[in-house]
């Protein structure tokens, strides 16, 4: 063999390896990217014989790979195991990447997911029924730590309502009107209780503050107004038949009211294309006086306003929903944020231990304040946030732990939260959703938006919406 041929034989595989990225990876490298493009953090601090806990998540952890590694270290130290944290930012379509990982056969011990996806995973037997373990558990079986209503919400995702397939990650909170309370005070307005009173508030904002009264993100956040006619978001079931209240004649007055807001320039006309981030920005910058968002965001908006150049007088406050003639109101709670254990998880016992630990005080501190030394310090029993901790606003996946025994160590940074949480608890309910909801919701939004924009009369919109839902078999009556 000629010398040149020999060189070619030797160099080709090496070159190919280099091009295809098959170079040998040093064993001590701890941050990498998996097939789904998710960042992985491997904790190697524990002894080699310790088991490995693999967690796929989209909300817990820090904001950088280094913080995620410290976060995984903290879990590993508490549970005496190695922790592999597969961290997919929610902006990178977590659900899609989770499906890719599970479908590709990747073994994961704990997956973060939400109620709608959990319903589909449980339906297909892809996650473990944890009911008996939860009942036996001293932590999760304690109603002070996880109240019964939370288990009931999680059970909405179980096949035929039987079994418990997940454990809550955090108190999910509810969507409620959040108003510029400083404007309300300045204009001498009192808390609105009916749709007419809400209308008057918006009109005042428009006249006196030169701002839109209300902004929305399509029909995502109209529940506090549908509350005036007692309609729930999602599905309701009557005698085994499913229907969508927003697609019934009872919703017509609310669509008509929203159209009136739009036609009179009180509703932000960008509402069809708005993301919730757009809504927050408009609210913080004073372009709108009210939007509908999570209770936990009331203090966060107040804190953000002070650091991000909003008006000095800025004061966000939650409002109760518009009340119906019977004096009752409704706000929808968020889709449950949960941890589940895949049916093929290699370390189910360790995974369940993690789910318990997450709901103990050390787990709650990690999920809210973050990692000691990075996000906060403790001196003489007093907690102090670091600059990283202040930036991250006490949100590391569990900003408001579900336990009734939890007390936030920084009450001054919780302005407006107690009132907002009370509204969520008083008027909140968990919407019933199923595997068809994503498609059904698009139909509801399409015709609802057309009604608000005035392209269809509210009556026409509801009739066409109902017909389209029936045609695609998303409702049974």
């Amino acid at each position, binding site marked *: 063999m000629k010398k040149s041929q020999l060189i070619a034989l030797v160099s080709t595989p090496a070159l190919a390896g280099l091009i295809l990225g098959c170079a040998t990876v040093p064993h001590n490298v701890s941050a990498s990217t998996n097939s789904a493009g998710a960042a992985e953090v491997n904790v190697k601090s524990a002894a080699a014989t310790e088991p490995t806990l693999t967690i796929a998540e989209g909300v817990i952890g820090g904001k950088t790979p280094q913080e995620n590694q410290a976060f995984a270290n903290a879990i590993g130290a508490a549970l005496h195991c190695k922790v592999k944290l597969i961290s997919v930012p929610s902006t990178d379509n977590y659900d*899609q990447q989770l*499906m890719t990982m599970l*479908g590709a056969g990747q073994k994961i011990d704990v997956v973060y997911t939400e109620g709608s996806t959990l319903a589909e995973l449980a339906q297909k037997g*892809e996650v473990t029924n944890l009911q008996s373990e939860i009942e036996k558990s001293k932590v999760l079986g304690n109603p002070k730590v996880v109240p019964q209503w939370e288990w009931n919400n999680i059970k909405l995702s179980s096949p035929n309502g039987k079994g418990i397939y997940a454990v809550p990650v955090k108190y999910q909170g509810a969507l409620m009107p959040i108003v510029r309370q400083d404007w309300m005070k300045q204009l001498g307005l009192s808390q609105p209780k009916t749709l007419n009173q809400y209308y008057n508030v918006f009109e005042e904002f428009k006249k006196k503050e030169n701002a*839109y009264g209300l902004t929305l993100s*399509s029909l995502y956040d109209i529940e506090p107004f549908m509350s005036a006619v007692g309609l729930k978001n999602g599905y309701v079931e009557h005698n085994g038949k499913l229907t969508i209240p927003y697609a019934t004649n009872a919703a017509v007055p609310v669509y008509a009211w929203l159209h009136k807001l739009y036609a009179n320039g009180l509703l932000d006309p960008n509402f069809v294309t708005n993301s919730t981030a757009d809504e927050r920005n408009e609210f913080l910058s004073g372009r709108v006086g009210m939007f509908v968002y999570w209770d936990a965001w009331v203090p966060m908006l107040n804190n953000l306003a002070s650091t991000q150049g909003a008006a000095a007088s800025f004061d966000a406050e939650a409002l109760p929903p518009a009340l119906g003639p019977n004096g009752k109101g409704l706000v929808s709670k968020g889709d449950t944020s949960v941890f589940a254990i895949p049916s093929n998880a290699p370390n189910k016992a360790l995974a369940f231990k993690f789910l318990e630990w997450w709901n103990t005080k050390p787990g709650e501190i990690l999920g809210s304040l973050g990692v000691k030394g990075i996000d906060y310090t403790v001196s003489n029993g007093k907690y102090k946030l670091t600059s990283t901790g202040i930036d991250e606003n006490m949100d590391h996946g569990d900003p408001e732990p579900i336990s009734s025994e939890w007390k936030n160590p920084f009450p001054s940074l919780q302005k407006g939260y107690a009132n907002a949480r009370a509204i969520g608890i008083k008027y909140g309910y968990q919407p019933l959703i199923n595997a068809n909801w994503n498609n059904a919701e698009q139909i509801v939004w399409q015709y609802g938006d057309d009604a608000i924009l005035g392209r269809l009369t509210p009556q026409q919109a509801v009739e066409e919406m109902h017909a389209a839902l029936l045609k695609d078999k998303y409702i049974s009556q």
Partner: protein
Amino acid sequence: MSTSEVVQPHRTKTLRRPVGYAPRRWKRALPLYFMLLPTLAYLMVLTYYPLVHAVVISMQDFNLIGNRPFVGLKNYENVLSDPNFWGDFRNTLVLGVSILTIGFVAPIVIALSLNEVLQTWLKRSVQMVIYLPHLFSWVVVGGLWIQLLAPAGGLVNAVLAVFGVSPVQFMSDPQVARWVIILVSVWKDVGFNCIIYLAGIVGINPSLYESARVDGANRWQEMRHITLPGLARTMQVVGLLSIMGVLRIFDQIFVMRNAVIEPKVNVLMTYVYDEGFQQMNIGQATASALLILVFTLVLTIFTRRLIRYDT
């Protein structure tokens, strides 16, 4: 008087392979075949294996974990009997053909116009400016246009307001939004195709223009009879590449769609996405993806036969 000559055919030597030639040639070529291995491995692992695997999945009741029973052609039947699939197919054709037509003509017109610009700095500046959008991802471009076209605070509506036009709901009127999608798509890629055509114009033999001028041709005649025929090959290649992408429109729609306009702008690839990742109906999503592959193949073969770009 003419003389004739008998021409004898040359006796050519018969090329006979010497004994042992084939093994020697094989031995000599071995390193070359070996060098092909990475490419073959790449194609097998990253193209053909996933394709075969997709065919298998399309015939399964696919669960992420656990059993995946074989269901034959049921997923294909479900796709072909789904009115949403055919609705999205119609949208794909409307959007695809419009983008293809306008996107084919626009860069030629711009390239020909730029070719007439004498100031090099102006020509280069325009080229750079119209090429820039091609470098941005659809997330940026889609978000940018949604903001620009917003009824409140959007630049376009602000300009219209100066002329007394009331705000237009560009992105929530299905018919208008369809045109926005088409024109934004053309706007994003026009610069790239324009550069290909400009490169094609540079490659045209200058002596053809000189001859035409000697024969008294004006600029229009030069363009009509030299430049455009000279660009025919480039047009064929650009046309073929564009046609191959018609059924694969996705990113732009995914970023720019909303509930109101979805029935008019959802395309085949968003159908695949919605079935697969929203409904977790992986078997049906894979079946629809393979049908799109077949449609694209048919379209490509048809176009290739029609334009014969490589002859």
